[in-house]
């Protein structure tokens, strides 16, 4: 089972420069753990204390996972997960 994960510029140092990588899992949480095993360090940039970091947006296909079930969102073969750092400031 493979899910495409699209990686933003700022996190490509974890993926050897790759714009997209594939990973596996039944939920977003499992997918991120699987990603961590092949790209160590990336999980900490996405997850903090068991939930998604506030200034990281993660989308399942066309939906922000915050409007789905967050890290518990089910994912399946053929899905695309996109990570985009929020553009924000003061």
């Amino acid at each position, binding site marked *: 089972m493979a899910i495409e994960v699209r990686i*933003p*510029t*700022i996190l490509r140092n974890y993926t050897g420069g790759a714009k997209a990588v594939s990973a596996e899992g039944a939920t977003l949480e499992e997918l991120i753990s699987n990603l961590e095993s092949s790209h160590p360090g990336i999980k900490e940039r996405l997850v903090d204390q068991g939930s998604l970091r506030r*200034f990281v*947006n993660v*989308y399942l296909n*066309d939906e*922000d996972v*915050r409007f789905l079930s967050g890290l518990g969102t089910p994912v399946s073969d053929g899905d695309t997960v*996109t990570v*985009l*750092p*929020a*553009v*924000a*400031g*003061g």
Partner: protein
Amino acid sequence: MLSISQELVDKIVAHARADHPDEACGVIAGRGGVPERFIPMENAERSPTFYRFDSMEQFRVWREMDDRDEEPVVIYHSHTATEAYPSRTDVSYASEPDAHYVLVSTRDENEVEFRSYRIVDGVITEEEVRFLP
């Protein structure tokens, strides 16, 4: 150095003025580092001290740029009561190392401050702005 057309500068400033006293924000997309396409974004925070792109709007715009082989050449926002210099929050959330971060200050009604920076690994570097006719 940022080279940008006066027309795009005027659009950024007009957006900042229109949303004052809230902060305005947006992107200029382009290719090869040349800013071309003006994309005003909604400030989901609607705040005079904070801005954040709406996550769904950002997704659509980023995908569109991807499809068109564009990148976010400029990411702009306004400060409405302080100078056009990146705040601590701006630095901590800066996530596009290749972008020119443009700041506009609307604190003065008659004069506009328009400045550009690179923000990489928490380090702010101001750069010259060249206004093209």
